[in-house]
């Protein structure tokens, strides 16, 4: 289990592992926003929480199609399925590795990008908290989508089509926390809902992911 996590982290950090691509995408997206909506700082600061959440979500989506497909292509997934490790733990560990290499860095750079978008001072704390609570759910849901499409030749686009609707509740509550926090409003309710969704998704979805992965392996 730990070995699998360490291997995935190593693979992500070595050459060609794609670490940092998500971050670069997040940065570019944030830079492009003022070009498309105009440079007025009042407008930017009002849309900043939502834009940053959407950017983080899309950056997460970007690396999902490699999450299981690489192991599927080179036969590692077959071997993992015959190993004395339940497939449920394999997908959970894979999701964790994805979060550590994609979600967590996004959380850490989000405040810097918040500066670019004139995020109100009160918003930084809530932006980081909401991303910290929400991005694990994005990784776990994304792993489910990756498991569904793992056997397909051009699964990337389909993966987005399947995963994005599933991201709706997380996005709504996460962005709501960030937005309310930035506006100095009460954040407890959406924060609890966000935490609840993340907890439930982590607890239950790996079973669905493992089930569809078994179907795809046979």
């Amino acid at each position, binding site marked *: 289990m730990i070995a*699998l996590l360490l291997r995935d982290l*190593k693979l992500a950090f070595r050459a060609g592992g794609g670490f940092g691509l998500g971050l670069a995408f997040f940065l570019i997206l944030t830079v492009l926003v003022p070009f498309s909506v105009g440079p007025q700082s009042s407008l930017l600061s009002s849309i900043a929480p939502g834009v940053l959440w959407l950017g983080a979500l899309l950056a997460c989506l970007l690396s999902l199609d490699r999450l299981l497909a690489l192991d599927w*292509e080179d036969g590692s997934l*077959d*071997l*993992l*399925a*015959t190993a004395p490790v339940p497939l449920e733990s394999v997908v959970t560990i894979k999701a964790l590795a994805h979060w550590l290499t994609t979600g967590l860095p996004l959380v850490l750079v989000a405040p810097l990008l918040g500066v670019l978008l004139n995020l109100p001072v009160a918003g930084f704390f809530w932006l980081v908290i909401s991303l910290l609570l929400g991005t694990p759910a994005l990784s776990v849901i994304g792993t489910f989508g990756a498991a569904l499409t793992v056997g397909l030749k051009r699964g990337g686009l389909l993966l987005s089509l399947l995963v994005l609707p599933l991201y709706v509740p997380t996005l709504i509550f996460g962005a709501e926390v960030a937005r309310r926090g930035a506006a100095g409003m009460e954040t407890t309710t959406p924060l609890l809902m966000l935490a609840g969704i993340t907890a439930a998704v982590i607890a239950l979805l790996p079973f669905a992911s493992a089930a569809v992965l078994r179907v795809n392996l046979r």
Partner: protein
Amino acid sequence: MTLTVTDLTIARGGIPVLQGVNLVLRPGAALVLRGSNGIGKTTLLRTLAGLQPPVCGTIRGADETIAYAGHFDGIKPTLTVSENLTFWASVFGANGIQPALDAFDLQQLAMRPAGSLSAGQKRRLALSRLLVTGRPIWVLDEPTVSLDVAAVSMFAAAVRAHLAGGGSALIATHIDLGLSAEVLDLGRFRAKTRPVADFDGDFL
């Protein structure tokens, strides 16, 4: 651990390919599978490894005893040879990697990234993984692809050592490994009709 297969029917893509397969594999024995392309050798081996469910029939003694090596090497090119092996050793929670490196003459390559190996060297690495799993039954699908003569005899020696240690091996191959192995031709199990109610049979 004896592997016993009784009256097994297996399907590929919902279409039965082999039916009524019976075989027994005792400790210390090797069984070589023969059969023309598309007969269902790979499907049979994947079924035994537990990667796909059989249509009907029973498989006994396959639970967490099988080390499977398929067409793909399952090697990460950016990890070194020893990192690749160490990973699988810790997943299977079994032996150290030293015997595996020795058996397949990988000692010199241990620190090289696996991506820089030739196809035959990669194959040797994939086969050496069998030793680190510590599993008694080896299920091998065309293990000698891209191996040279020296490597083939290295592999045959490893199989003989495994058998001598009480293990067993089920090998789908077309070349002669010089093992004293029984040969099973799958041709006689070819599925003739489609009477299998569970799959497309309902639609006929």
